[in-house]
């Protein structure tokens, strides 16, 4: 069985298989990633860089979308 890490996703604990990339995490939580901005430790991770960006234990990940606003 592969080892797990825990990241902080939008302020909540999220377990992930060790070695997961940002793109893997998006699939795991059910997002197609197209309309989501991803920040890892406050750095924006652009879509083309998500498959190569491997998440580490304790990484703080923020996922942001566009919602209604004036």
């Amino acid at each position, binding site marked *: 069985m592969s080892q797990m890490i825990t990241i902080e996703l939008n302020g909540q604990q999220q377990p992930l298989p060790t070695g997961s990339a940002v793109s893997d995490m998006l699939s795991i939580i059910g997002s197609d990633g197209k309309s989501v901005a991803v920040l890892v430790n406050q750095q924006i991770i652009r879509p083309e860089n998500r498959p190569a960006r491997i998440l580490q234990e304790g990484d703080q990940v923020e996922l942001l*979308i566009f919602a209604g*606003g004036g």
Partner: protein
Amino acid sequence: MDLLQLGSYTFSSRLILGTGKFSSAAVMLQAVRASGAQLVTVALRRFNREQAEDDLFGPLSAIEGVTLMPNTSGASTAAEAVRAAHIARELSGSPFIKVEIHPNPQHLMPDPIETFEAARILAKEGFLVMPYITADPVLAKRLEEVGCAAVMPLGSAIGSGQGLASAAMIELIIRESSIPVIVDAGLRSPSEAAHAMEMGCEAVLVNSAVAVAGNPPEMAEAFAEAVAAGRKAFRAGLMQKSGSAIATSPLTSFLGANG
């Protein structure tokens, strides 16, 4: 053709619509279509997998001719607003950013100092900066000098429906400004939007008045017509006001005149 010019972008609609406070995404989308708005504001929010329908990027982008203008709502400092703008640009692919920094939830008045600083930084980075400000002609001029694409003075407090309480100050801003002046916030009725346009505003931004109307799509259409009428009246040139009556019909007596 009479177009609204913001940076290198041009728009035939002068109604900018906000997307907050609608009862559902479906009603909001109907209102956007009915309004004919080509610039539509959105806000950044954390993704919530239980509320995936809140994600408006896809449905709004699917409406032809709509450009997104993200806001920095939630920021209470210039640094936070700049960070929000960078994230928003990643998502929207649009250079427009509505700089909105209001630290006090009681009155939602914009912080002029933080707003100026954020606008200065973002304009230098190439954003089309649309700052939401109090109706202050001095601040408006300073924002123009640092390269904002427009200034957006409030008519009255956000969501208050108190209309053009700051009309006199907005007129001063228009008189001094070389960039578009867009009234943002506080409008309740289409007649107020028409009034703003007759004064010489280049556009108006409306959200609550449409979102919480009995029939939002119909109200969106009413605002679009009022904005167009107000603009046409401004271009046509309003008559001068006079302190006394000036007759429109001949006053020479003819009844009982001897032929």
